[in-house]
C-alpha cells in the first residue's frame, strides 16, 4: 500500500491537515484511539474521505482494514460528503408514533432527497437519527443546531426556507 506522505484532497485544506496531524500525534500512545481520532478528524473535515482513512491508518500505524472496519461499523462516521445543512429527522419511537414518517416523505418528495443522501447542489443532507431526547416535542427535526419540535409536513417548506 502506498504511504500517503501528504494529504492532497480538494475537501481538505492545509490548515485542516495540520489539525489532523495534531490529533494523530496526541493519540499515538493511547490504546483504543481509532474511534476518538476518527471522530475528531470528521469534526475537522466534515466527513471521512478514503484518503483520510489511509492517512489515519498510516499515522496511527494500524491496518487500514481495521480503521475502515471501525469507520463503517459506527453510524456516526460518514465516508460521503455532507450538504451545507444537515437535516436530522428523529426516527425514535415517540417521533414515529407522532408521525415523523409523513414528514420524511414530504422532505423526500419536495427536495428529491432520500435518507442518508445529499442534494446535488449540496444544500441539504438528510439523516435519520434515533431519539434526540426531546420526545416531549415529537415529532422532532434538527436542522444544523436548531431543534424544531411538533413539526408537520405542511410547515416544512417555510421551516426549511431559511437554510440557504
Amino acid at each position: 500500500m502506498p504511504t500517503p506522505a501528504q494529504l492532497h484532497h480538494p475537501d481538505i485544506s492545509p490548515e485542516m491537515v495540520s489539525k489532523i496531524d495534531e490529533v494523530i500525534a496526541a493519540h499515538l500512545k493511547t490504546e483504543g484511539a481509532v474511534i476518538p481520532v476518527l471522530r475528531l478528524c470528521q469534526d475537522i473535515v466534515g466527513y471521512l474521505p478514503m484518503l483520510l482513512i489511509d492517512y489515519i491508518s498510516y499515522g496511527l500505524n494500524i491496518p487500514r482494514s481495521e480503521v475502515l472496519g471501525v469507520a463503517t461499523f459506527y453510524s456516526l462516521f460518514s465516508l460521503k460528503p455532507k450538504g451545507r445543512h444537515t437535516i436530522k429527522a428523529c426516527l425514535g419511537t415517540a417521533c414515529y408514533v407522532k408521525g415523523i414518517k409523513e414528514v420524511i416523505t414530504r422532505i423526500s418528495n419536495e427536495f428529491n432527497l432520500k435518507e442518508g443522501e445529499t442534494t446535488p447542489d449540496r444544500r441539504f443532507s438528510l439523516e435519520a437519527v434515533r431519539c434526540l431526547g426531546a420526545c416531549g416535542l415529537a415529532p422532532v427535526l434538527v436542522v444544523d443546531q436548531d431543534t424544531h419540535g411538533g413539526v408537520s409536513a405542511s410547515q416544512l417548506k417555510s421551516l426549511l426556507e431559511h437554510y440557504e
Partner: protein
Amino acid sequence: MNKPRIQLMLCGGSGCQATRSRKFQDALEKELERTRLDQEVKVIETGCNGFCAVGPVMLVQPEGIFYQKLTADDVAELVEEHFLKGRPVKRLQYVEPASKETIPNMNDIPFFAHQKFRVMRNKGMIDPEIIDEYIARDGYFGAAKALTEMSPEQIISEMKISGLRGRGGAGFPTGLKWEFAGKSPGDEKYVLCNADEGDPGAFMDRSILEADPHSVLEGMIIAARAIKANKGYIYCRTEYPLALHRLDLAIKQAREYGLLGKNILESGFDFDIEVYQGAGAFVCGEETALMRSIEGKRGMPRPRPPFPANKGLWEKPTVLNNVETFANIAQIILNGGEWFAEIGTETSKGTKVFALTGAVNNIGLVEVPMGITLRQMIFDIGGGIPKKRKFKAVQLGGPSGGCIPAQCLDTPIDYEEIAKVGAIMGSGGVIVMDEKTCMVDMARFFLDFIQDESCGKCTPCREGTRRLLEIIEKICQGNGEQVDIRTLEKLSAVIKNSSLCGLGQTAPNPVLSTLRYFKDEYIAHIVDKKCPAKRCTALLGFKIDPDQCKKCGLCFSACPANAITWQKKEVAEINREKCIECMSCYEACRFNAID
C-alpha cells in the same frame, strides 16, 4: 453576597432548550438587570425538570410556583407583576385539562404529585454545573461514609439488603454483581458506567446526567471502593453534547475537591474517571460490546462466560452499571439498604424513572415507586390520552420489549409482573399508543431498527431479523398470507434461542407481543387487506366516504398535491391521478371519513 430573595430554577434541559429556553433566559436576565432586581432575584439554569411537554418551564423558589411555556415576550410582565409586585402571573401557570383549574404550586400539579423523587431528587433544584450545590444537598456524603467508615464487604452487604436491581434493562441484583467482581482476583479492576442509552424513545439517563451528573460520579466512586477498582469509564453517546459537557465539568470539579484522583478524602483510596464517547451503535449498549468499543474495536459482543466480573475491559475484572443504577447508590449508603427497600414490591425495590411519551397528555420524565400500576402512571401522572382518543397499548422496553394492551393496564410496575404479560421493565422507555397506531406497523418499526443495528456476527440475528422484517413488510403491503403468522412465530423462536447476545435474543419480542394481543389486526391486514388504524399506505383506499364526510374542507387545505376538490357545503373528493399518497388528508380529517 446575600442570599437572593427569589431563586428562579429555569430548566435548561435538552427539551426546554429546543423550545428556546435560552432566549427566554437572556431576556429575563437583561430585564432583571434593567429593573435592578438582579441581586435579589437569581436565575439558575437546571437540568430537565421532567415536564418537558410544557417547556420551557421554571420553578420560583422558595414559593414553589411553577411557570410553563415561557417565551421572551412574557418577561416584562413576569418581572413587573411577580418579582416586583409579588403577584404571580396566572396566565403562565398550569391549567388542569379536565377541570380547567389553574394550579400555581408545582407540588399540587398531578403530574408531580404522584411521583416519588429519589434518583431525581435534585432535578431542577440545583445548578448541575456547580459542585457546591450538589454537596449542599448531602452530595458526596455517601462516598465519604463508604470510604472512611465502611469496608468493601460492608458496602456490598448494604447493597444486597437494599435489593437494588440494575436499571439498564435486565434487572440483575447490583450487590451480587459487585460481590462477584470484588471476589475476582487481580489488582487491576474497572468500574464502567453505561450511558449509551440505546432505546430509541427514551431519555432517562440523558436527563440524569444533565440534571445531576455528580450523583453518577458518586455512585461510581462507591462501586470502585467496593470492588477495589482504581479506574472508571463512562461510556456516553456522542449524540448527548450537553450531558458530555456537564460530565466533563463535574469530573474536573470533583478532582479539584479531592473527590476523584489520588488519596480521595485522605482515605488512601485512588480512583479516577474518564469519559468515553460512543459512536452510534445500539449493540454497544450490550456489556461485552461496550468494552470492546472502549478498546477501540468494532463493538461486537462475545459469548459469556467468562463474565465481565472475571474478564471484562482489557480482560480485567469489571463492573458495568447503568446511569440510573449508579444514581441510586449514594442514598442507599447514606440511608441504609433497609430504607431503600421500604418502597416497592417483593422483588422490585425502590423507584424507577420512565420516559413517558407518545399519545399521552403529560409527556416527560417521571419517577414512580415500584408497584404502582401502569394505569396509574399513564392516567394519573400522564393525564390520559389526548384528543379524546382511546388507549390501545403501551410499549415498554423499546426494541427488546413488548406491547401491553388495555386489559393488562392494572399490572404493577415490577420486573416479574411485567415479564408475565409479555413485556420487560427495560431501561424506562414508555410509549403510549392510541387507536391511530397500527400494531403491525409498530412491529415493523422495531424490526427495522433491530435489523439495522444487528452487528452481524451471528446468523440467526442477522438473517433471521431480516426475514422477519420482510414478512411483516409483505403483510403491510397487502401481500400477506395466513401461513405468515406461523412462520413469524416459528422464526421468532429460533432467533430467541440461538442468538449470541441480548440484542438477538430479545429481537422478536415486539413481534411476539403484538401477535399475542393483536392477532386480529394481523388478520385484518392479511385476510381483509385492511389496516384498521389506517397507517399502512398500501392498504388504504384514498377515498372519501360521502356518508361520513362532514364537508369541513380540512383535507383540502392539508393536501400538498392539490389532489382534493372541495367546496363549501360539499363533500370532498380525492383525485387519485394527482394523489401522492402522503397521508396528510388522513391526518387532517377529524371524522374518520377517508378510507
